[in-house]
């Protein structure tokens, strides 16, 4: 076990013992498949340009002076390729994402482990001990560590939990963000709020549309606006399509009118229609907080037919726990819960077990009233109807209460001195 900070700066000597320079960097290969980067070359500072020595030419790495197995003239420099990472230049002192702790941290040191004659980056030191070690106060660090007792040192995370931030220079790693994409959107939002504007923009750039959409839904509207600044209009439109229409409408409402119009134009017809409809209502009314992603079936269906229909249409729905029932005129005539649907005999017409007394709210009802209705009747969602009784959308409980409870938990714009 060695730390890169201890190795950097050590003299490197050729086969006959003559010093040829100092170690200033290590090149590691990040081949997908190996969870830890493997040291493949050393970068030696020399008069003129640095020499990149392949690891196979190194006799011993952990030594006060690093001996090589060949003479200087015999060394064929290593050519760093697409999957190679310069540890000191690209990783040390940079910010990374700790996907275990869901936070952004800075690399203070790297711990190397030796396996089968090769060295791998085992852990990343992000704690204060690493800082002390880098400052040359290693002895102090060790004494403090000794007092802390045995067991895993604080502030050390394994490399496989690390996600490097996409930098200015394109780093060809494994698909950027594959670990990030696995994180829960709320955690990803937390990480974004820890990064600087340009870094968060770059990170979003590297993610797929679905992940971006999910993450955006977890942050405050003004933060959303700031995050999409750096994205191309085309990508923003794609993201808006992926987002739930009510969330997309909220985001568009924050933008200047002409930009918002442009973006809606770029969206697919159906999604654009939904969003346009939602944008027509004031934010603080039922129409403004509802979503058009609900499931409604015709009153003439049986339970089994309903389940089959659900299989087709339920993908995009916000919630399918309540299924709403409409007549030929799209008027809301009843609803039932998924539980009732599953418990019913397949041939039973839904008209038999549906609840005809539906609690509804109107499009222009203020959001406080919606919240009260949701709370009073213990609903998971409440349908929104217009004056004719036609079903226009639903407001889920979280959205209804969202407007009432201070949204302290949603991520805010990271601002200095805030």
């Amino acid at each position, binding site marked *: 076990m060695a730390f890169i900070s201890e190795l950097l700066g050590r003299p490197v000597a050729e086969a006959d013992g003559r010093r040829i320079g100092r170690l200033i960097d290590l090149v590691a290969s990040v081949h997908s498949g190996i969870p830890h980067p493997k040291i493949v070359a050393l970068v030696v500072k020399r008069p003129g340009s640095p020499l990149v020595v392949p690891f196979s030419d190194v006799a011993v790495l952990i030594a006060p002076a690093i001996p090589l197995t060949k003479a200087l003239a015999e060394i064929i420099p290593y050519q760093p390729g697409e999957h190679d990472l310069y540890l000191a230049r690209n990783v040390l002192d940079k910010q990374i994402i700790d996907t275990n702790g869901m936070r952004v941290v800075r690399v203070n040191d790297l711990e190397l482990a030796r396996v089968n004659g090769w060295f791998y980056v085992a852990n990343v030191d992000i704690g204060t001990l690493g800082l002390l070690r880098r400052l040359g106060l290693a002895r102090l660090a060790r004494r403090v560590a000794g007092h802390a007792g045995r067991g895993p040192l604080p502030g050390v995370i394994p490399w496989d939990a690390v996600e490097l931030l996409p930098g*200015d220079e394109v780093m060809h790693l494994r698909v950027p963000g594959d670990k990030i994409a696995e994180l829960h959107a709320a955690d990803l939002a937390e990480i974004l709020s820890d990064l600087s504007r340009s870094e968060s923009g770059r990170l979003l750039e590297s993610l797929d549309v679905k992940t971006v959409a999910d993450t955006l839904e977890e942050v405050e509207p003004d933060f959303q606006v700031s995050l999409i600044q750096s994205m191309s209009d085309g990508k923003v439109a794609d993201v808006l399509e992926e987002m739930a229409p009510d969330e997309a409408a909220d985001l568009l409402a924050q933008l200047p009118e002409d930009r918002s119009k442009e973006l809606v134009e770029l969206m697919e017809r159906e999604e654009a229609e939904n969003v346009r409809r939602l944008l027509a209502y004031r934010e603080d009314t039922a129409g403004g907080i509802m979503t058009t992603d609900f499931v409604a079936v015709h009153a003439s269906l049986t339970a089994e037919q309903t389940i089959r229909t659900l299989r087709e249409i339920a993908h995009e729905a916000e919630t399918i726990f309540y299924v709403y029932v409409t007549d030929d005129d799209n008027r809301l005539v009843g609803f039932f819960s998924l539980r009732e649907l599953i418990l019913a005999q397949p041939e039973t017409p839904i008209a038999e077990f549906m609840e005809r007394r539906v609690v509804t709210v109107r499009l222009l009802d203020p959001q406080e009233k919606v919240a009260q209705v949701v709370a009073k009747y213990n609903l998971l969602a409440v349908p929104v109807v217009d004056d004719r009784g036609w079903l226009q959308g639903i407001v889920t409980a979280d959205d209804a209460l969202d407007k009432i409870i201070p949204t302290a938990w949603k991520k805010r714009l990271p601002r200095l001195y*805030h």
Partner: protein
Amino acid sequence: MLAVIGPGIITANVDNDAGGITTYSVAGAHYGYTLLWMLPLVALALIIVQEMSARLGVATGKGLADLIRESMGIRITAIIIGLMLIANLANTVSEFAGVAASMEIFGVSKYVSVPLAAVGVWLLILKANYKSVERVFLLASALYLAYVASGILANPPWEEVGRAAVTPSFHFEAGYVAIFVTVIGTTIAPWMQFYQQASIADKGLKAADYAYERLDVIVGSLFAVLVAAFITIACAATLHTNGVRIETAKDAALALRPLAGSYASTLFALGLLNASIFSAAILPLSTAYVVCEAFGWESGVSRSWKEAPVFFGLYTAFIMLGAAIILLPIKSLIQAMLASQTLNGVLLPVILVVMLRLVNDRRVMGRFTNGRVANVVSYGIVAILIALTGILLVTSVAPGVLGNG
């Protein structure tokens, strides 16, 4: 465009803090118009340095401490942060000295005003919305215009002023060199570079906004130096001509007589108090942010004490220390304020060299690296500053060695 404007103008206004007002007042009162020639040159230097800092912020989207850590490693970061801590502490002391001095004009003892101010400032940042604090401060900065008015009303011999503004003069005398370094140090304070770059990075300005940001920086710098010039002129016209030396803030207040008559002291005290309190709030906060940014500790006013212990601890410690040092029996608050600005001037070359390394690094800046002219001027400033510091040391330790003493 309005959204962009801000960091440059704010930073420049913070420039005229307690240390600034004191330095310019002393420059005018003790040396008359003879130091005026410095100001256009210092203005040029300020614009160049601030512009570099703004460019760093726009090109990288990061704060200065962040950038130093990522590009220059941790040893240099530790040294720079260490130096900055010392300078910032000195400056914080100076701000509280300003509070004490201004309140003494109202007859309030420093043992009352400083602790109150310290607690007030501490609470202000924790509870109040920063944006509104900033706005209030900026509005109150209009008080600086009082100096412009005073300078004009004092009816100085404009011909002499004009001549002095273009006639360099220099004496190898410790006091003279000191005031030189002090004027530079207070106008181009190192902590301002960190503060401005962080503000700009925080705003998320893009390359396209850069032109506006440059305008913001230039206007801000010019305004700051303009105010500085008028403070000097006003003091020269009223105090120097009457042979009054500035020992306390009350003496400095007399410079506002032409404008405010018997209210001069009150006006001055309010202006000084406003400048001191705002800076006393910003400095510890900015310091805490910078340190945490560099070493990767949690920071942010919206966090809890447990989440960000170093941040809050540092912030509190700074305020307490700054206030405590002022409460010690110090003979002259004025001298204390001047000394802190001199320290700024001494440490400035170090920060400048670091900034120059970063600004010339193509990997960091992309196409925003320094042009040759900018480099020549900047390195020139660094050289002059180092030379001045050297001269200062020599003349303080061995006066008379370098000539007329």
